[in-house]
């Protein structure tokens, strides 16, 4: 349903450049994969525990999975993988995993007392059993969601995506319902500032966030239930989004799977650049999280829009394209099908520059033509929005028109009050009304035109593509990690051995075992995809 209807590219891009871009993308992604394939992270381990169904936290709100993992770490056992350790505890104590985790966490069981450091075959078998059962449960969850979706309509493309960000999950619910009833197809709950820096998932239903609402399993559930209710009411399935990024990336992916999320914003590079998260850590986390999302049939959306929020968007447009290509092949490597890879981009050029509308249009077509099978997530103007809300409506109109004209699949709606505050309830209405006008009145515009041979837009798109290819060449040569270290993206330098969460990366021991690594989809599709 998220497959694009676009047949042949309107831009008629040079085949050579496309092929070269693809070749380079694959090569860069393979190199990343090779570099991280022997690594695991604390958050991957915690995610594995969460997949088993472990949840809850101690009095202070520290999740059991964190405490348990820390224990494994301090007991110097982590390199075996937490599942092996847990299985041994379960075996020795005949407790179920949840109990076992809690007992260890509360120091009622000491790992060092108990653990045979090298897991026996038997332990491995128990591990497999636990994982298989979990896998079954998770499969059922997923099927439940897909079945529910199938009973309803899915709206029409482009899907209208709006955010809620009141900081209070109950207010978020009101705002989300209002938006859905007014025509939104997708609701994203924005996270509170700096949640991405937390190396754990906060616990419980929350009502106080700043610039967003905490992403917790309980908040996910509250919102999902509310949206299911509206979906039922409107007969149109309302998709739920949250952020699968930051230090707890794989865990959030797991919660997304458990709580029926449909789309997750997922991009390691965002964390690296804008949150100073260590690149090894988050790219390792990302691969695991994408495998989970792939299993869950959850669309990822990437964050290339951010690459042009702090630098000149026109000049640096090719970095967006290059990053999309890398992200695409990284995603394929993690088992995601093209139809689940929601590449991001944005309308962020200076609107006062002449021909800026043409340049935006060229860019929107470029991404569309490069990734015909992928849903594209188009982000609205933010940087050049001002307190002039009336002009804001106009820029958003230009954005919406380009969105429908170029067949973007997901339109993240711009708000007239972008420069002022996270959206008020009426802001969303005005923006949905704006987008619905263009969807309905200009939805068929994309099939009307061909570009002239002399088209400025075509020239511009080819120029951007070629610059992207050159950049990919450089990145391919030095490797993504070095490129990030040298400030290739958004002019920000992030060395491989610095940044948050580096300490949470470890090399898997020879006896490391995690059955999910074979259960979750991986790069099987890689070779078959263009």
């Amino acid at each position, binding site marked *: 349903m998220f497959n694009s209807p676009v047949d042949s590219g309107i831009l008629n891009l040079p085949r050579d450049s496309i092929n070269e871009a693809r070749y380079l993308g694959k090569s860069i992604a393979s190199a990343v994969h090779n570099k991280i394939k022997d690594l695991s992270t604390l958050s991957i381990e915690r995610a594995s525990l969460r997949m088993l169904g472990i949840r809850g936290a101690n009095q202070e709100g520290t999740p059991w999975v964190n405490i348990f993992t820390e224990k494994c770490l301090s007991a110097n056992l982590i390199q075996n993988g937490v599942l092996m350790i847990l299985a041994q505890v379960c075996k020795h104590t005949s407790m179920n995993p949840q109990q076992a985790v809690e007992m260890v966490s509360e120091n009622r069981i000491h790992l060092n007392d108990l653990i045979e450091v090298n897991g026996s075959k038997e332990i491995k078998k128990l591990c497999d059993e636990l994982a298989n059962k979990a896998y079954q449960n998770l499969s059922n969850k997923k099927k439940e969601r897909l079945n529910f979706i199938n009973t309803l309509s899915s709206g029409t493309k482009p899907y209208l995506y709006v955010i809620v960000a009141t*900081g209070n999950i109950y207010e978020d619910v009101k705002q989300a319902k209002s*938006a859905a009833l*007014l025509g939104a197809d997708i609701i994203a709950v924005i996270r509170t*500032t*700096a949640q991405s820096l937390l190396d754990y998932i906060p616990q419980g239903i929350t009502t106080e966030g700043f610039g967003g609402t905490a992403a917790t399993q309980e908040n996910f559930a509250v919102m999902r239930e509310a949206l299911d209710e509206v979906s039922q009411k409107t007969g149109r399935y309302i998709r739920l989004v949250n952020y699968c990024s930051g230090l707890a990336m794989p865990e959030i992916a797991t919660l997304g799977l458990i709580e029926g999320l449909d789309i997750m914003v997922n991009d390691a590079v965002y964390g690296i650049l804008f949150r*100073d998260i260590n690149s090894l850590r988050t790219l390792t986390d990302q691969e695991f999280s994408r495998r989970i999302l792939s299993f869950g049939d959850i669309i990822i959306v990437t964050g290339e829009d951010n690459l042009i929020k*702090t630098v000149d968007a026109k000049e640096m447009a090719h970095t967006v394209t290059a990053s999309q290509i890398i992200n695409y092949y990284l995603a394929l490597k993690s088992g995601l099908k093209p139809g689940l890879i929601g590449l991001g981009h944005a309308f962020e050029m200076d609107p006062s520059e002449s021909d800026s509308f043409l340049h935006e249009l060229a860019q929107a077509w470029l991404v569309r033509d490069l990734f015909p099978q992928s849903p594209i997530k188009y982000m609205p103007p933010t940087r050049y929005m001002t307190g002039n809300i009336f002009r804001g409506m106009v820029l958003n109109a230009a954005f919406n028109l380009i969105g429908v004209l170029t067949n973007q699949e997901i339109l993240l709606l711009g708000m007239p009050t972008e420069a002022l505050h996270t959206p008020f*309830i*009426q802001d969303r*209405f005005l923006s949905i009304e704006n987008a619905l006008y263009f969807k309905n009145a200009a939805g068929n515009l994309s099939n009307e035109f061909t570009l002239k041979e002399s088209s400025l837009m075509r020239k511009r798109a080819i120029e951007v593509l070629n610059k992207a290819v050159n950049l990919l060449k450089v990145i391919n040569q030095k490797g993504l990690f070095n490129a990030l270290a040298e400030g290739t993206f958004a002019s920000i330098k992030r060395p491989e051995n610095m940044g948050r969460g580096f300490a949470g990366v470890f090399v898997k021991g020879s006896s490391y075992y995690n059955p999910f690594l074979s259960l979750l989809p991986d790069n099987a599709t890689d070779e078959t995809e263009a």
Partner: protein
Amino acid sequence: MMFLKPYGDTLNDGAIQISFSLPHPLNETSKKVSLELALKMGIANPKITFTQELGEGFSFFIIYGNLSHEIDIDSIKTSKVKEPIIDYWDINRLIEEKFNRKIVIVGATIGSDAHTVGLDAILSAKGYAGDVGLERYPVFQVHNLGSQILPELLLEKIMDKQADVVLVSQVVTQKNIHIHNLTQLVELIEGAGLRDHIITICGGPYLSKELALELGYDGGFGAHSLPSEVASFIARRLLEKSK
């Protein structure tokens, strides 16, 4: 005495537009409430020009009317004439002459706030809107710590670098998190006995000089501030202090 009131197309018509939502379904009651609110605001002849039900239990209103309030323009005290800008060369010369050393500036976005563009606009050599940033002034030695710096850490850095000036940026304001963070920092600085030894400046799109002073800062800079304004302010304060 000259009174000012809003103008649409005829002097003193008071023409004004308002919009807001109510947490109530759209019906006769909420329409009436919206008009009553307009009247309480001093809007004569309020006319609802648009209403919209916003899903369940919410409604949106656009109202036009004629404001009866007016302001005696003579009663307006504009915060004295803006301090004139001291230019780049003078700043460098004056400070050089007086201090004969570099002025140490520490800057950061504090708390969980990760917006650095505004801070960088002031600090980085490139500057903002064609106006060079503080790093370009030979007399300033700038340490830009970047984003998401906890107030405690910032205090440490201030002491560490023996800063003369601290510049903090706050962009996220939801639930007044900026007030919380800014207050915390000032209190820490005071606690450390540094209040009189350092010039404290905050900035951000939703900050103002007034708010900054209220919170205990020496200066505050809002949207569209220029590095040269900040540099000027710093120079003037330094020179005053050293008198």
